[in-house]
């Protein structure tokens, strides 16, 4: 069989004509495909939104306390501006820090800190505010009880003083020197001036550490110099 003969044989295989309805079918496909894609996108969008909303509702129901704390914009009841000095062993000044902060559920929330990188301060402030309710070891109920007691059921009450117009309870927290493994930890005394009206914020704090001869040296002191209520 030569090429021409093969071609003649092959030519006897006729393909049918495409059906007439194919055009209508394609036209219908055109009419539906684009809106269909749009509809599909819209459906997907709403489906995702619905699932997300359901998930949020479920999480809220399961962890209502935590979510409330996170979701609700934290209303800052007051801001205390404090000045803190830390001292070296020889008594010289080591560092000065100025902070704006307040107490929420027993946790001090730092709003600003000087000196410090503004970005780091911003990060600390926001992370602190967002995460402290989750990771704070302070039991809010116990803290509420502490505030209700006039800041007096922890440590030894040594008196009451007024600082910046706020009545404070002065408590001493004594921690004797003790061994932890091979390390001897110095004894320390922390004295706090805590204001019940400010959620037991310590408007003044003195931290002293015990020397080897039994005397105490100043390690850190802080005092508030301004209180802003409902900032």
């Amino acid at each position, binding site marked *: *069989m030569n*090429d021409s*003969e*093969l*071609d*003649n*044989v*092959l030519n*006897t*295989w*006729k*393909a*049918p*004509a*495409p*059906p007439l309805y*194919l*055009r209508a*079918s*394609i*036209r219908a*496909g*055109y*009419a539906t*495909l*684009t809106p269909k*894609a749009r509809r599909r996108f819209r459906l997907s969008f709403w489906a995702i939104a619905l699932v997300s909303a359901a998930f949020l509702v479920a999480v809220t129901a399961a962890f209502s306390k935590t979510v409330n704390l996170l979701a609700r914009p934290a209303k800052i009841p007051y801001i205390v501006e404090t000045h803190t000095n830390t001292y070296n062993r020889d008594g010289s000044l080591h560092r000065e820090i100025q902070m704006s902060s307040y107490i929420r559920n027993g946790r001090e929330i730092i709003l600003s800190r000087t000196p410090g990188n503004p970005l780091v301060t911003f990060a600390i402030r926001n992370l602190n505010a967002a995460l402290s309710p989750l990771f704070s070891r302070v039991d809010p109920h116990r803290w509420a009880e502490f505030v209700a007691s006039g800041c007096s059921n922890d440590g030894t009450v040594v008196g009451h003083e007024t600082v910046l117009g706020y009545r404070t309870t002065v408590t001493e927290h004594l921690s004797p020197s003790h061994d932890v493994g091979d390390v001897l930890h110095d004894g320390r005394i922390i004295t706090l001036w805590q204001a019940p009206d400010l959620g037991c914020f310590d408007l003044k704090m003195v931290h002293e550490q015990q020397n080897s001869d039994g005397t105490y040296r100043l390690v850190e002191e802080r005092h508030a110099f301004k209180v802003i209520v409902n900032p």
Partner: protein
Amino acid sequence: MRERAFLQLFDDHHAALFRFAYRLTNSSAEAEDIVQECFLEILRPGNAYDRRRTRIRTYLYGVVRNQWLKRRRNSSITDPAPDPIDDRSPESDLLASEAQDAIVQAIGRLPDPQREALILAHYEQLPLAEIAAILEIEVGAVKSRLERARARLRESLAAYAPPQRSAK
């Protein structure tokens, strides 16, 4: 793409694409599906057609071919039963149908690369360069596939060659 332009494109190319799909699949139903899928492919956002690089006809043949290959991969059935031949007169019926069945079977037995090259070259009369573009191979490879396909068909369809005229 506007509907008018889309339908014009369909009118220009669907008959050839249907023929090509029909000869690849040997089924009108399959060919319809493939052609439909081929045209709807153009409407899909992000389709690969680039008018600066490829002629639309070449692209469409390529889509048909890919659809066919995809269907073959997804189906365990290699070839569907051929469509019945129903538009022939009783007199020519037997011989024509017999010859056509033989051709369909012979082409169907060709390896896929030879089969698609043969259909595009012989039945669609496309130039070798365009076939090469559709099959994404070199022109030399198209030629070689065609030669092998035709050699096989010569053997398998020898019985259907027209009888040699004796010299008077």
